């Protein structure tokens, strides 16, 4: 064994060997039993000086551990659980679809009255997109057109509920998206 190899070993032991030289030394350590024995003895000296040597040190201990490690499979890094991106997009689309159906349900409940009130011309300004293409597109905005004829009893009741929900901002109805009344002007052709 060359003396400069041992001097490098001594410096590596103290963490004072440059990275490249340390890599070469580790290669040598793994293939040279004599150098490896010197590594063990240098650490033994360090442990005695630092009073870390246990009473009755077992010289065969490292060989036993080495034998047990040799029988072990090479451990692999445990894979992190990854949520596929497609899944999250589908989830978003589903949530949007449910929200759209909820709005449509509220509106349709208001239009169906038992006493057949005068029909309201109900139209959705933008058709709901099919499920497959419903990703991040905005929700449809409902537009209600009044035909000008007077409402029946149920017809009068629906605007009351809407007004109540609109003005009672502090206590929103659970599960129902807050209603915002938008008033616009549309010129007759």
């Amino acid at each position, binding site marked *: 064994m060359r003396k400069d190899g*041992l*001097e490098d070993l*001594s*410096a*590596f*032991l*103290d*963490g*004072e*060997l*440059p*990275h490249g030289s*340390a*890599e070469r030394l*580790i290669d040598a*350590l*793994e293939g040279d039993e004599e150098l*490896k024995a*010197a*590594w*063990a*003895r*240098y*650490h*033994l*000296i*360090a*442990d*005695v*000086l*630092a009073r*870390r*040597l*246990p*009473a*009755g*040190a*077992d*010289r065969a*201990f*490292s060989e*036993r*551990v*080495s034998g*047990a*490690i*040799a029988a*072990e499979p*090479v*451990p*692999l*890094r*445990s894979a992190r659980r990854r949520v596929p991106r497609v899944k999250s997009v589908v989830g978003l689309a589903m949530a949007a679809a449910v929200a759209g159906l909820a709005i449509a349900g509220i509106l349709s409940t208001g239009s169906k009255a038992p006493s057949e009130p005068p029909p309201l011309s109900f139209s959705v300004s933008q058709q709901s997109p099919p499920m497959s293409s419903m990703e991040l597109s905005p929700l449809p905005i409902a537009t209600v057109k009044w035909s000008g004829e007077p409402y029946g009893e149920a017809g009068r009741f629906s605007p009351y509920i809407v007004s109540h929900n609109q003005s009672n901002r502090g206590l929103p109805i659970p599960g129902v998206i807050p209603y915002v009344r938008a008033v616009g002007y549309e010129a007759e052709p």
Partner: protein
Amino acid sequence: MGESGADTQLVKRVQKGDKKAFDLLVLKYQHRIIKLVSRYVRDPSDALDVAQEAFLKAYRAVPNFRGDSAFYTWLYRIAINTAKNYLVTLSRRPVEAEHGGPDNDHFELDSMLQDVTTPEDMLLTDEITHTIVKAIEDLPDDLRTAINLREVEGLSYEEIAEVMTCPIGTVRSRIFRAREAIDNRLKPLLE
């Protein structure tokens, strides 16, 4: 680089599947871990088994070691937990199974003997310690001071160079020569 830097290099190799690099870590830390475990597990033979188990656990977990702490800190925690788990298992084990029943007259004596390290092991440890201490006493002053500042005080080469007012290269050389002189006395004892 620092001492932990050398560990990091070895750990990275182990993470790439190099088992021999882990053997070097075992050689480096075996005494510290055995001594640590011995504080919890009094029986020397059991302490060695627990220490071995700790190294095996560390080897299995090493791919997930991210280097947030020093390798020894991480290994230390594994060893402590392994020793504590062993004690829990031991407390749950029926006494009959361990010592052949409560009627065993030799129970007390067995228990006492298990706490004592074998005379051969004790003798070797004493001899090793004595040889190293004597070798250090016989070193020239500059080598003895350098090795003590490094191994006992834990100073870096740069700090030792400052204390001893000499270049870092000289510190490196002095520490190596001190180790070489001690090793020349120690080697025949271990062969």
